[in-house]
Every structure is written in structure tokens, then in C-alpha cells.
């Protein structure tokens, strides 16, 4: 806490992952914010990860859209809204309600979601509203509904504090949910919590694992079916709970018995160790995330996990139960409002006529949608075949994030009418829109979000809306009014919307549904403004905030359902042409398509480039060396990626992060590689099991560039990132250039004479440009991967830096090396120096350098540095 005191701070919620950390915002009066963790927020108790801590660096107005644009030309709101309303109304009039669609986002606030959903499902009369949460946790929603009769997260974060065993399945918690990871690490330090990580890849999360089960990709069902049979065989099943509160046990165990645990690729010893731990530990929490969800068998994987918790009755009691952690700040809010095409609103079912009638009556809606709409992947398939003629995309970037992303781009190009409401017109998706509407973003928005443990917290504005940007709810409401539903969309404040949403949850509660926040339906504006984080259900019945401890579920029978599941195979098959299976995921310091995180220079240092993790055996077979560039091709697309050789991945199973876009690394987009194969139940695409061919990209040259101004290089491969004083980029080209001076002049848009170093025998060239004696750009070209002290060189823009072309600091100057700790900006070399001086002690090194003393998400990497250098010393 700084000296300004917390009274000046505005309490809000972080816009990144689903942990939903409370933040304190202090505007600096010049458009900036300082951000710190909110000690009073139950999700993080003051902690923040590197991404959250850098939020202040992302609120600049550079690239913000400040006024509506029609066909690329600025327009006023009246014209833009009239055009959107008219085009949607006309399309509906001519082709029916199902000819239009909304594709929205887990970034939207609950109030935004509520209005969009009400407009589509209640008044337009179609359920063609889906959200990017479809890519994130749709399988969990489906699994929950199959087992519990409702999309209910049974437990809370506190369960991590009091569990004796935590099983992390398909979750790199250390990087993707760092604050929860630290909470778990702290619990482990305190009570010796056993931790099992189930992941085909070795990740930073394995740092605290007692057991890492490196399972064959996608074999989670076999693993948990094996566990279920073990529990049954060893008598670890709770017969009372099963008989009184569940149904379907016989079918489920029969199915499990027929499954083959050897499909996990694990040894019998590993399987036995896991089963023994699980069956012997009552307080067991199973945390699961995208590794489970993003699969054509995702819903079955969820149910395989839930089956084991139901069999042991370990659900809804302190320290036990399944816990889905979501990737977005308001994935849960979207689920609550019905933002998915197969839900209605307030956890009510679209297929249920009495639910529809009740919601229709509540809204005064004439034509509530009667059947589920198109889920994300199907929605974008319906665009090119003409079923959908007008689409509105709010606050998301499907041209990057959806599978077969190149097809999505083609679809939008061909679509009659595309509206995008977003912060920037410079996203891969917004570039293809007919109308782009300026929306407010985090820091400006006013409303609520729900995190992974059902805690509703406020996002409060700390900055004014820039230009003519408006809240998403207001934009949807204005279009609703213009389409003829004046009264239904006559909202003045988010508080009004929230009260209506809360009141509707009371209607749902009347049907016995889980989601009930009706106690908040009469919040005054002032109470809404002051609303402290609150976990639902808000009722006296569930005092400890957990569900199902009493054995009562939301199915028609009130019993939980065992779902018989069998291990399947991924939808795509490996073949001689596509012999590798590509896994995807996130990196520590970026979030989704980087539209926000890429603005923060300090987040651009940890992993500044997209990459392909490749097992040494694969690399050797392919003739690929460290930092070479690989060509990755799938039946649907191709990409160029930097090779990172590591035993963290299994042979045949490379991994690539999914963040980079046409804005940041056009050749390295992962979306186009992923086939649009979806889980038959949840509609969630299989993002982590694409079949690909990998080969060497024969780069004629590699280069590293720094520049004061943004770069958009013209070459086969490039990836750019922000630095505190400009930009950095990695580049490679297929064709050699004879005249680098001309090429560099074009690249940087500079025509002054550069200083040049050339080593013609080695084909290396380095050029530097100065303006008024200060460095404005530099290019380092080499025939192979470029050796440059990047983290030093990027600091030299704007400096006199006479020896910049040495590409390294002089021997007397410290070279901190690549950043390991983003929060405290500590580089690898600084840590290695401390290691030499202080010895191989993690805490001592952290204290000495400051690294890992904030969010701690880099501590696994520091531990890794220590263990490897210790090994090295031993070997020498």
C-alpha cells in the first residue's frame, strides 16, 4: 500500500483470467492508472500476477477507436446505430430471426451480456448468441448439466486451502491462474498438501507436484475410468452417498471397467500411485481447465472426473470436490445470463416451455427463442453458407481465436453485414467489419463479473470513456430500441440492469434452479455502487457457499447422474502426411489474443515471440536446431514458429502458444491450424489435438529489430512486441536481400544514412539509425538465429548508445538477460549472478534479487534455473 492511502483507490476487478482478483486503481490524472492488489478481495487477498500488475500499462489510448466507423469512415453514433438496427431488422424481416447472430465475449460484463442475450433470445427471437466462452469451458457447462442438472460449480477457492490432495488436470495453473497457484503453494507449504499434475506436457505447475502424470494427450477419460474401477475394487466408494443421492452408477462402472487404463501411456506403478493417493485422501479437490475442456471428448472428460467425486461422495464439503477454473473474467457471468446459445437465462433451459414462458413474461418478450441457437463454430459455418447474413461481434477476436481461423476471416469477408464493437479497429476481426463501434474497455466499464468460484464483484470505472466510446450494454440497448423495443431496452444505468438480472434469478429459483441472487434485486443505486464481492447462492440455505454437500442436485430426480463414458480418440487422425499432434495453450505473461497484454512492455519480455516446443528426438529427426524456424502445416492451415527444443513435451506431441495474431505475428497464428471439430455435447472445439506436419523453414536470413516506431515488416516471418521506448521484432525471410540498407530504410521508414557493420563471409549485417544523435532504430541480420543481448538492446532506443551494433552491453555494464520475473523486472543473468553468490537457495535468491517476490509465478522458472545450474556444476 503506498502513502496515498486506500481511500483514494477505486476498487475493481482484474479483466484477465477467471480467478477474478480484486484490484485497487489509482488514476494518475494523466490518463494512466497505478494498479495494486486489493487486500480485501476474497479471491486474491491482495496478490496479483504479472499480468494484473501491469494493467496500468495497458490503458493508453494508442490504437483506441474513438468514434464509430462505417466502411472505414468515421461516423456519428446516430447514423451508425440506425444503420445497424435497420440492417438487422431488414435481414430478420426478409430471412427470419435465425439469419442474424451475436458472437460475444467472456470479457463482457454481466450487464452487457444480459442486454445482448435479452435482445437476441427475447426480442429478435433467435438463440443465435454465443460467446467465446464456448472455446473455454463449454464442456464443463455440459458436464455439470449432465451430472448435476445445472451448470453449478460445487466448491470454492477455500477448498484449495483445506484440501489434502489437489489433482490438477489439464491446467497450467502456475501460468494461467498464478494467484490460485500461489494460494495452493502456500497451502502446501503450510499443511503439506499433496499435488498431482495430470498433463502430457511438463509445465511450470509441475514445480510443486508430488506426482506428474505425463499422460498420452487426451487420455483423461481412461485415467479417471481407471481410477473409478480402482475406487470400486478397493472399496473406496461411498455406498451411502451413491445409493441415496446418485443414479447411473452401474452403467458408469461397467463402462469404466471396459476402458483400458494403458491408453494413458502411464506405467502401472504411476497409475497405482495416483489411485492410492486419491482413494486414500478424503479431502481431494480436482482442478480442471482447458486441457480437459478443449477436446472433442471434453464433456466426457468432465464427467469422468465428476464420476470419481460422486462415487466417493467428495463434493460440496470443505476441501473436496471438482473445481473448474475458467479462462475469462466473466465466463461465469455469461453462463448466468444465458450468453451461450444452448441456455436461456439465469440457468434456465431453452428447451423447457415453462422456463421460456416465465422468462418471456418477465421480459414482456413477444417471441422468446424456442430452440438452441448456433454454437460458435457452427455459427461461423453458417455465415459462408448464407444461413447467417448479419453478425455482430462484441469484444472478441474470432479471426484469431476460432479454429480454422482463416475460414472465419473468409466468412466475414463474404458476410452481408458485419458489426464489431470493440476497443480498437486494429484487430484482425475489426478490419473485416462493415461497421465498427467504439466500446469502453476495462478501467472505463461499470458493472459486475463472476469469477470461477461464483463470486460476483464490481468492475468500476477509474478513467473516463475516451472519445465517443460507450458501454456495450448501452450500444445493445440502443439498437434494441431502434429495432422497435423501446421500453424493454430503456436502460439508464448498469445498476438497473443488474437489478433486473437479479430479479430474473428469483424467477429461476422458483423452478428450483441453483442461480439465485434475488436478494440483490432491490439494491439501491448506492448499494450497487458500493457492492462488495459476494458469492452466490445468496441465501441462508447454503451458508458455506458450497453446493451438493447435502446430496441434493438440480436434476428432475434431485439425484446426481453418473455418466458412463469411454475413452475416445481425437477427431483428427495422424497420418504419414500429418504425423505430429499439436497441443496449444497459453504463456505466462500474455492473455488471449494479446489485444491488451501486448500493450504492456513488461509483459512482452518474458516470451517475446511465438514458438513451437519440440522434443529433442523430433527436432533431430526433422533437422531442426534451437531457435530455427519450423513450418507447421495442418489440413486447414499453416504457421511458422520458432523452435524451442525441450523434453517438456513428449515425442510426436509439439506445443505452441495461441496468442499471436496478424497484428503481432501473422505467420504464427495458431487458429488456422486447428480443425473445426467440436465436442458433440458441448460444441467446444478440439484446440489441443490438431494433426500437423512439421518441417524446416529454410530461412535465408534471420534478424532482430528495434524501433521507436511500430514495425510492419515485409518478410515471411515476423513477430513484434512493445518495449518501454518502442518496438522489438524477430524476423526471418525466405529470400536473401542484397541491399540491406534499402530494406532497412523501408522497414523503419527512415532515410538517413545508417551506421553499418558487415561481416560478409558470415553474412551478418547490422544497421543503426539515429535521429539527432539518439538511436531510433537498429537491425541485426544473421544467416541463422541472431545472437543479440535483446533485453539490453531494447533499452537503447532514444539513447546515444554509440556501440549499439555490438549487440551487447560492454563488459563493464550489467546485462540482466532475458526477463524471468516480469513483476519486478529481473533478468536471468541477474538471477544466475545471485545463484553464484548466494548459493542454490530459492528463497535467498528471491530475496536478493526481488524476483518472485510479487506474484510468484516465475518461482518455478527460478527453481528450474537453480536445479539445472546445480546439475551442471555437478557434471563439470
Amino acid at each position, binding site marked *: 500500500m503506498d502513502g496515498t492511502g486506500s481511500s483514494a483507490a477505486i476498487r475493481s476487478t482484474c479483466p484477465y483470467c477467471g480467478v477474478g482478483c480484486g484490484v485497487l486503481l489509482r488514476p494518475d490524472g494523466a490518463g494512466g492508472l497505478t494498479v495494486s492488489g486489493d487486500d480485501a478481495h476474497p479471491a486474491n487477498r491482495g496478490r496479483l500476477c504479472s499480468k494484473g500488475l501491469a494493467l496500468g500499462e495497458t490503458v493508453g489510448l494508442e490504437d483506441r477507436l474513438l468514434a464509430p466507423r462505417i466502411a472505414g469512415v468515421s461516423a456519428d453514433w446516430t447514423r451508425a446505430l440506425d444503420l445497424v438496427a435497420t440492417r438487422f431488422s431488414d435481414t430478420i424481416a426478409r430471412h427470419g430471426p435465425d439469419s442474424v447472430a451475436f458472437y460475444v465475449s467472456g470479457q463482457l460484463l454481466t450487464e452487457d451480456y444480459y442486454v445482448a442475450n435479452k435482445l437476441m433470445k427475447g426480442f429478435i427471437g433467435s438463440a443465435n448468441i454465443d460467446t467465446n466462452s464456448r472455446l473455454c469451458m463449454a464442456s464443463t457447462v455440459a458436464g455439470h448439466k449432465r451430472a448435476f442438472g445445472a451448470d453449478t460449480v460445487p466448491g470454492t477457492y477455500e477448498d484449495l486451502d483445506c484440501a489434502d490432495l489437489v489433482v490438477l488436470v489439464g491446467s497450467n495453473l502456475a501460468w494461467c491462474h498464478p494467484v490460485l497457484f500461489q494460494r495452493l503453494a502456500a497451502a502446501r507449504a503450510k499443511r503439506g498438501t499433496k499435488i498431482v499434475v495430470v498433463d502430457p506436457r511438463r509445465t511450470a505447475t509441475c514445480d510443486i507436484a508430488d506426482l506428474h502424470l505425463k499422460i498420452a494427450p487426451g487420455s483423461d477419460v481412461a485415467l479417471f475410468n481407471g481410477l473409478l474401477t480402482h475406487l470400486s475394487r478397493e472399496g473406496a466408494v461411498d455406498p451411502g452417498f451413491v445409493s441415496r443421492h446418485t443414479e447411473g452408477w452401474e452403467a458408469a462402472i461397467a463402462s469404466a471397467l471396459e476402458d483400458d487404463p494403458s491408453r494413458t501411456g502411464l506405467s502401472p506403478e504411476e497409475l497405482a500411485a495416483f489411485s492410492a493417493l486419491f482413494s486414500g485422501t478424503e479431502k481431494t479437490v480436482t482442478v480442471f481447465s482447458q486441457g480437459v475442456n478443449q477436446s472433442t471428448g471434453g464433456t466426457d472428460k468432465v464427467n469422468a472426473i465428476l464420476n470419481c467425486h460422486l462415487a466417493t461422495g467428495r463434493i460440496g464439503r470443505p476441501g473436496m470436490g471438482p473445481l473448474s477454473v475458467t479462462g475469462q473474467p466473466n465466463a461465469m457471468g455469461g453462463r448466468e445470463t444465458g450468453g451461450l446459445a444452448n441456455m436461456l437465462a439465469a440457468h434456465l433451459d431453452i428447451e423447457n416451455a415453462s422456463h421460456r414462458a416465465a422468462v418471456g413474461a418477465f421480459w414482456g418478450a413477444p417471441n422468446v427463442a424456442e430452440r438452441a441457437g448456433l454454437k460458435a463454430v457452427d455459427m461461423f459455418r453458417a455465415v459462408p453458407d448464407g444461413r447467417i447474413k448479419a453478425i455482430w461481434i462484441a469484444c472478441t477476436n474470432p479471426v484469431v481465436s476460432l479454429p480454422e481461423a482463416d475460414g472465419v476471416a473468409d466468412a466475414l469477408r463474404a458476410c452481408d453485414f458485419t458489426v464489431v464493437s470493440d476497443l480498437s479497429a486494429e484487430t484482425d476481426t475489426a478490419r473485416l467489419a462493415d461497421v465498427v463501434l467504439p466500446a469502453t474497455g476495462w478501467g472505463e466499464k461499470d458493472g459486475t463479473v463472476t469469477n470461477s468460484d461464483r463470486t460476483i464483484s464490481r468492475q468500476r470505472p477509474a478513467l473516463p470513456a475516451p472519445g465517443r466510446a460507450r458501454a456495450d450494454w448501452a450500444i445493445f440497448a440502443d439498437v434494441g430500441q431502434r429495432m422497435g423495443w423501446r421500453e424493454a431496452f430503456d436502460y439508464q444505468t448498469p445498476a438497473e440492469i443488474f437489478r433486473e438480472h437479479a430479479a430474473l434469478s428469483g424467477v429461476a429459483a422458483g423452478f428450483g434452479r441453483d442461480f439465485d441472487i434475488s436478494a440483490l434485486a432491490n439494491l439501491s443505486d448506492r448499494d450497487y455502487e458500493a457492492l462488495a464481492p459476494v458469492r452466490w447462492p445468496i441465501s441462508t440455505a447454503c451458508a458455506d457457499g458450497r453446493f451438493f454437500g447435502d446430496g441434493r442436485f438440480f436434476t428432475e430426480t434431485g439425484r446426481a447422474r453418473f455418466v458412463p463414458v469411454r475413452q475416445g480418440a481425437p477427431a483428427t487422425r495422424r497420418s504419414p502426411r500429418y504425423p505430429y499432434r499439436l497441443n496449444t495453450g497459453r504463456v505466462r505473461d500474455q492473455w488471449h489474443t494479446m489485444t491488451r497484454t501486448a500493450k504492456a512492455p513488461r509483459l512482452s519480455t518474458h516470451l517475446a515471440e511465438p514458438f513451437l516446443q519440440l522434443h529433442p528426438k523430433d527436432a533431430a529427426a526433422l533437422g531442426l536446431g534451437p531457435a530455427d524456424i519450423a513450418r507447421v502445416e495442418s489440413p486447414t492451415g499453416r504457421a511458422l514458429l520458432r523452435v524451442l527444443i525441450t523434453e517438456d513435451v513428449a515425442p510426436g506431441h509439439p506445443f505452441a502458444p495461441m496468442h499471436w495474431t496478424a497484428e503481432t505475428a501473422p505467420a504464427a497464428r495458431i487458429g488456422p491450424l486447428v480443425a473445426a471439430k467440436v465436442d458433440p455435447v458441448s460444441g467446444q472445439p478440439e484446440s489441443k489435438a490438431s494433426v500437423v506436419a512439421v518441417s524446416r523453414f529454410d530461412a535465408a536470413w534471420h534478424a532482430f529489430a528495434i524501433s521507436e516506431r511500430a514495425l510492419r515488416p515485409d518478410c515471411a516471418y515476423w*513477430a513484434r512486441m512493445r518495449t518501454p521506448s518502442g518496438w522489438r521484432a524477430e524476423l526471418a525471410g525466405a529470400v536473401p536481400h542484397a541491399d540491406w540498407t534499402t530494406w532497412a530504410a523501408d522497414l523503419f521508414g527512415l532515410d538517413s544514412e545508417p*551506421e553499418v557493420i558487415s*561481416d560478409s563471409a558470415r553474412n551478418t549485417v547490422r544497421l543503426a539509425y539515429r535521429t539527432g544523435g539518439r538511436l531510433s532504430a537498429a537491425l541485426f541480420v544473421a544467416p541463422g538465429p541472431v545472437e543479440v543481448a535483446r533485453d539490453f538492446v531494447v533499452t537503447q532506443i532514444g539513447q546515444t548508445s554509440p556501440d549499439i551494433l*555490438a549487440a551487447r552491453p560492454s563488459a563493464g555494464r550489467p546485462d540482466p538477460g532475458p526477463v524471468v520475473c516480469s513483476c519486478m523486472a529481473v533478468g536471468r543473468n541477474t538471477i544466475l549472478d545471485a545463484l553464484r553468490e548466494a548459493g542454490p537457495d530459492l528463497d535467498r535468491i528471491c530475496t536478493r534479487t526481488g524476483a518472485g517476490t510479487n506474484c510468484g509465478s516465475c518461482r518455478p522458472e527460478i527453481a528450474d534455473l537453480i536445479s539445472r545450474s546445480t546439475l551442471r556444476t555437478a557434471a563439470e
Partner: protein
Amino acid sequence: MTRNLVIIGAGMAAGRLVEHVTAAGGWSVTLFNSEPRGTYNRIMLSPVLAGETSFGDIVTHDAAFYEAHGVTCRFGETVTAIDRAARRVHAPSGSVAYDKLVIATGSTPVMLPLPGSDLDGVISYRDLDDTQRMMRLAPGSRAVVIGGGLLGLEAAAGMHARGIDVTVVHLMGHLMERQLDAAAGHLLRQDLTRRGIKVLCSSASQEVCGAGGRVRALRLTSGEELPCDLLVMAVGIRPNTGLGVAAGLQVSRGIEVDATMVTSDPDILAIGECIEHAGQVFGLVAPLYEQAKVAAATLCGTPMEYVPAEPATKLKVTGVDLFSAGDFAEADGREDIVLRNPARGVYKRLVLERDRLIGAVMYGETADSGWFHGLIKDGTDVSAMRDSLIFGPGFQGGHALDPMEAVAASPADQLVSCCNGPHVVQSAFAGLSSVAAHDAVGAA
């Protein structure tokens, strides 16, 4: 028992030899010098000319020094013959017997055989007399220097500093072609022109024009006439071998010596600009000093061999930073590293062969020249530091660079691997101090 040592010539090599020999003792030394003075640092004549120092300051061994060391000085006396059979040296004031003789007669400047080159006012640039001729010119006078090599340019710059209007006429396409490549030569010409010295390259002289027995102008083959009050020829030197030839020693371009500095007569040694060793003649001071050391060792019976080292050149023109060492001719198997900084007027070129530095040319910034010279002389393998080599010793060592930096904060196998930093830095300083003495004495 004291033996007689006779040294012919009291130039810089001889002066150094006397120091070594008198320190070792056992010799009665007689020193002949045609110039009527003791030893001075010839390479410092340019600063004297430029008015930056005075002659008194550049005398290294005067008569008093030699007297104090028991040397018999016969200054202003030219040796006329060597009688090898009698082991005597003949001079106008009488002959002297020797047990050992050292010839250190140095070299003579080459004078172009142009019509009119015997006119008054046509001089070379070799000794104090020449320097004083130039110093006596009145400000505003005009001078032409033939030869854009090291000496010619120092003469030109020195006279220019005294307010003389100077034109340099150079036969080759760029200045100092033996030390500089075309790019550095171009920068040098630009610098000199900018300060007011006219430079004509690719220009051949045809005739020295006179009036009343004095030089009036230089006419070029192009027909252009360059009016002048003084014409300085600085087009090269020729070893003074006359005494050796007359005495029947083996002589080609210079008096031939072996690695111990002994001529074809075992009792006669030779050092300095008059000798030829392994086909090579010498014009820079560093090898001369080395030869003096070897000759002294030979005289004292200590085995020592002369190993020619790559000489380095620095131009002593205030404000011009220039360094050249080794071989930088283009050839198969040679690789160039070139740095160009037009804004700062800096040019550097390193020539590598089989991962060794064999040549270096630097213009505009020469602070690390000693280090580069050391690398050339030591034949150090520079492959590990090639990427930052041209930036000098300050950029060697430190943490290893890693092309994986952008994608992996902690790649395997690339940790804690500092390269040979401390070693490199040490040898850098050694090189720096040893090169301080290396400078030009004459080659133009």
C-alpha cells in the same frame, strides 16, 4: 677484457643498441654519425614541424649521454670504408680497429628524377635540416608535397599548421595506400581537405619549374601547374648500403642479415633501415628497436633470434585518428568485418584469415588499436568473439548471448557459460602497453 665495438650511424636503432651494450658492459664503443649531433627521435620531427614540441624535447641520446656511458663519439664524420681483412673502419679523422662492427647507416629518402629536381627549394623529409627548412617558410607561403604517404601527410599537416598553403600530390588513387584501404583513404582525404589541405590523387608529377635557380612550381602530367615556394618529396626511402657493398658484404635491397643480425661477415652486424632480413626491409621504429635488442644479445653471446612482427601505423596528425596494422589486401580465404559510421566519420575494417586477425584499418576511432595489434601479433583465434570483435576488448566476456532469448527465459544447456572474458581483457591491456612504442619512422 674489453673489446672494441664500432657502430656506424647514431640513429634510433643505434641509440637503442648503445643502451643495451653499455648496460651489459665489456665493450669499448666508438660511435660514428654523419649528422653533427647525437640521437634524436626522428619520428617526432613531425610534431616539431607542427610546432607541438621542440627539438630539444625529442633528443634521446645526446653527446653528454654517450660521454657518461664511455662511448667515443665521432659525430659529423662519415665513414669512408670498412677493411674487413684488417678489421678496421676508415674515416677522415683516422681509422679505428674493431672486434665487432655494427652498421646502422639507415636510409636515404628517394628523390624523384624529375627535370628540375636539383633546384633550390626541392627537399626531402628526413632529418632536422629538412624540418628546419620547412619551419623557416613564412606564413602565407606555398608548398607542394609529392607523396601522400605517412611522411608526406605529416609534412603537409605540419606546414599547414604553420599557416602555409599546402597541396599534396599523390600518384595513387587514395592516400596512404600501403596502410589504408580505399574507404579509409577517402575519409582521410575528406578530413584533410576539410581543414584546408589540398589533395590531388591519381596525379603524376612531370617537371619542377624554376626561376633564378629556385623552385617556382610543380607541373603535373595533366599540364596543371602548382605554384610553390618549397617542394617536399616524400615518396619513399632507400636503405643506405654503400659501405656494405664496398666491403663486399652480401647485399640485395639492404645489407642481408640473419636472425641474429649478423651479416655475411661474422664480425659485422647490421640493424635498422639499412638491412634486409628474410627479404624484408624496414621503415617503422618498432622492428628497429627489436633488432637493436637482438644485436646486443648477439654481441653479448646470448642466443636470441629476431622474429618479425606485424608493424602498426599511426599518423601523427593532430585530430586525425588513424590506425593500420597487418595485411589487408584482398585475397582468397580472407574475410572482412567492416564498420561504417558516416555520421561520426568512423570506419573500421578487420581482415581475418583462418579465424585469426591479420589486418586492421581504423579511421576516426582508434582507442582499441593496441588490442587489435596484439591480436594480430599473437595470432589469437578470434572466432569466439567475432561478433563483437570490432568493438574492442570492452565488449568481450560477459554473459553468453543466446538466440533463444525471445522464446525461452531458461533454455537448457546455455546457462552460466561465460566465455573467455577475463583472459581476453588481460591480453588487451598487455597489447595496449606494448603498442605504445610502435610508430612510424619513415616508410612513405
